[in-house]
């Protein structure tokens, strides 16, 4: 089972190979990629120059393994692989990759969506965005709307 935080470029094929087994008839893969446009706090789109990702590495990998345990509990015989990049990423570079294998495709789709949604809410990783509008530019930490928070 591949679960890793890495400063190296992500290889989705490596994750797909990891979950492609004799038992799995369906394999679903998700790639999260740095995009050029992101909405600012005012809801207006800003041009993104780059992202810088930072992780609490040991804890992040532990939470990712916990997601794999949750997937196994919810759906039984599934295979999960997850990798997240840290460091400086340019537009178009993959930041996160998830691959799920299951006997049938329905579970593979559901488990893959659950895994990426749960990662975005719970895995201790942060991103700083370098952005620009016509009038202004800056760098900001960007929080996921899904993130757990103390309320």
């Amino acid at each position, binding site marked *: 089972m591949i679960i890793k935080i890495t400063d190296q470029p992500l290889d989705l094929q490596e994750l797909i190979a990891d979950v492609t087994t004799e038992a799995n008839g369906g394999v679903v893969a998700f790639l*999260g990629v740095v995009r050029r446009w992101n909405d600012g706090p005012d809801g207006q789109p800003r041009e993104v120059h780059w992202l810088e*990702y*930072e*992780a*609490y590495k*040991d*804890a*992040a990998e*532990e*939470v990712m393994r916990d997601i794999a345990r949750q997937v196994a509990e919810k759906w039984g015989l599934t295979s999960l692989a997850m990798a*997240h990049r840290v460091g400086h990423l340019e537009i178009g570079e993959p*930041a*996160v990759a998830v691959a799920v294998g299951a006997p049938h495709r329905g579970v593979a789709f559901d488990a893959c969506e659950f895994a*990426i949604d749960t*990662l*975005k*809410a*719970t*895995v*201790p*990783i*942060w*991103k*700083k965005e370098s952005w620009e509008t016509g009038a202004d530019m800056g760098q900001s*930490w*960007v*929080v*996921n709307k899904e*993130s*757990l*928070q*103390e*309320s």
Partner: protein
Amino acid sequence: MDKVKLKFFAAFRETTGQSELDWPLAAGQTAGDVLESLVVEYPALSGGVKSALVMVNRRYATRQTALQPGDEVAFLPPVGGG
């Protein structure tokens, strides 16, 4: 004096200027107690830590979690992975 190890990430790392700190721990203190003493030392954290998550020894915990000497304690800004 017993101690815990505090870890800082992202905005909190920038605010404190530290990635980690040894922090004094009194008997019976919780993560919330340590957070209060941290904000006294670093008042600039006071706004951000309201929504902070807590991890003790790399597992999610709460402000009510009792700490032991040597614990690794992290107050985390809301996350932004993916």
